[in-house]
């Protein structure tokens, strides 16, 4: 009897509203519209090879969008995320090449450097109390300069040397940048990394204690601290999570192309943020989802390849992207307003 009563009360929840409460609904609608649109104007995009290319494009952005989305749900930005990918790739490449070590040594050093950059951002944020926009803008400029300056100092060039003949390269490429065949098309392993990160990120956010803390520090850090949530540790951990993603993305880039251009990555940090926002992450924190950010990255992939398959000038890509951002944000805001409207009583 009591159980039945229990079940009734716990279930009392309109299904439609429950669905609308999911942060990724707006992005899902947007993705369906974009896919339908490009399927009509660029039928090539439906071919299995094109799907693989779209997913690859989405994964290169999507890997970073996982870390960036979690950070944004935790209430912070990371403007250094784009160049941090290049920093990681440069570190691995130059360390291994200059010291003549196995490339895996460089890969591990790059991991430490990437986590270190994340920890630096996080510690600066909590120690100084400055907004993350300023702290990471500083890191962004410092890394951008250091990428160029140190690469020139070490290699005398703007790009790193080819490391494809070095020991450990083949195994590292197999892990970070190999391709496999599925359904008659070649697919990059970066798609697997992406999906794995989305799964882990979603699990952490919704099922782990840390996920509860991420929502709480983004929703209201002072309240979270008052009930015993380790706010400082959570925020630093989130920045280090972005560092981890930057390392994975950087290693993919290094082993896919064998050399790294030291000036790359600028502007990509905004694309990660756009993917997260399109996916339903609130700019002010406390709300969002990793799956949403993945859908945001997918929209990127579809639009960037769709423009090409439609035979249009690629210049239109950014235009579409901007329109998508505005549209998705408005849809998200509208959906949330509907779902969160207070009960009349």
């Amino acid at each position: 009897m009591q159980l039945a009563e229990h079940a009734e009360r716990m279930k009392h929840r309109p299904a439609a509203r429950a669905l609308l409460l999911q942060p990724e609904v707006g992005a899902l609608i947007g993705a369906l519209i974009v896919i339908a649109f490009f399927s009509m104007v660029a039928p090539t995009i439906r071919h299995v090879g094109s799907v693989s290319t779209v997913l690859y494009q989405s994964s290169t952005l999507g890997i970073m969008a996982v870390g960036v989305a979690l950070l944004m749900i935790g209430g912070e930005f990371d403007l250094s995320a784009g160049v941090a990918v290049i920093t990681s790739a440069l570190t691995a490449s130059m360390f291994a090449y200059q010291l003549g070590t196995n490339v895996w040594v460089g890969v591990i050093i790059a991991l430490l450097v990437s986590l270190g950059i994340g920890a630096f951002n996080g510690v600066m944020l909590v120690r100084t109390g400055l907004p993350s926009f300023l702290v990471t803008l500083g890191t962004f400029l410092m890394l951008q300069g250091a990428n160029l300056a140190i690469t020139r100092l070490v290699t005398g060039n703007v790009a790193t040397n080819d490391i494809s003949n070095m020991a450990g390269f083949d195994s590292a490429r197999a892990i970070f940048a190999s391709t496999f065949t599925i359904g008659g098309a070649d697919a990059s392993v970066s798609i697997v990394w992406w999906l794995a990160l989305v799964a882990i990120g979603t699990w952490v956010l919704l099922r782990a204690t840390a996920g509860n803390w991420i929502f709480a520090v983004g929703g209201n850090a002072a309240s979270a601290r008052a009930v015993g949530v380790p706010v400082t540790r959570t925020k630093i951990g989130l920045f280090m999570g972005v560092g981890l993603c930057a390392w994975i993305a950087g290693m993919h880039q290094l082993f896919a192309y064998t050399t790294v251009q030291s000036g790359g990555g600028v502007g990509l940090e905004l694309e990660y943020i756009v993917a997260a926002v399109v996916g339903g992450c609130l700019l002010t924190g406390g709300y969002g989802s990793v799956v949403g950010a993945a859908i945001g990255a997918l929209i990127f992939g579809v639009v960037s390849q769709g423009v090409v398959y439609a035979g249009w000038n690629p210049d239109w890509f950014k235009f579409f992207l901007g329109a998508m951002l505005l549209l998705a944000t408005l849809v998200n805001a509208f959906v949330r307003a509907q779902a969160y409207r207070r009960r009349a009583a």
Partner: protein
Amino acid sequence: MTNQRNGSVVIQLADVSKYYGNIRALSGINLTVRRGEVTCVLGDNGAGKSTLIKIISGIHPHDGGVMRLHGKDVRFASPRKALDAGIATVYQDLALIPLMSVWRNFFLGSELTTGMAPLRRLDIARMRRATDDELKKMAIDLPDIDAPVGRLSGGERQVVAIARAIFFGAQVLILDEPTAALGIKQSGVVLKYIAAARDAGLSVIFISHNPHHAYLVGDHFAVLNLGRMELDARRDEMSIDDLIQHMAGGAELKSLEHEMRRSGSVL
């Protein structure tokens, strides 16, 4: 334990004082908080109400006098220490996160988990059930414990915060102006749960500047004025008019009344 009877002394302040630099925030405060009673602390803005609860809840230790908890001298170094001793404070801002669901808020910072690391995960079923049970135990009727707290009314939020404090073992519940921002109906709901907490055997310290609300649930009234105890009386020793009179500062109100009347004649 011998002191588990209603009416037994839980907290006792004797000649407690607090200074912020040269400024005397409180002096010579004597206060007795009993089990199963609502102790109302009233006073105007700046009377020292906040300072008093900060001492009891461990935010600022007192400078002079003694505070005893169950007869033992205590001095809390942090809010966590006070909480561990069973003294929970529900502040006006409640420490609830509006965008998070009721059950996630209920267990925030004290999450229940299941499984082994690295797969240790939230025990969502158990937390939802416990939240639902606890709210039901206090006869709180929320339609949906998955709803974000932001969708609850101000009164409902207060009640959820009170239920949370009780669930996590509070013996002394300090409520900082719980009805200040609420309408009449909502205030009534909160006052009902204050009474429920008292009946459950808690000692409630109810901070307010509304004598009407205080008189509805209070067993014992302490009125502060400029850092001193202006009145310390039990309910049967006074009427609500006495309370209003003391809160307004007695003599001050008389002279204000006089002034108003004069300025009224000028107009």
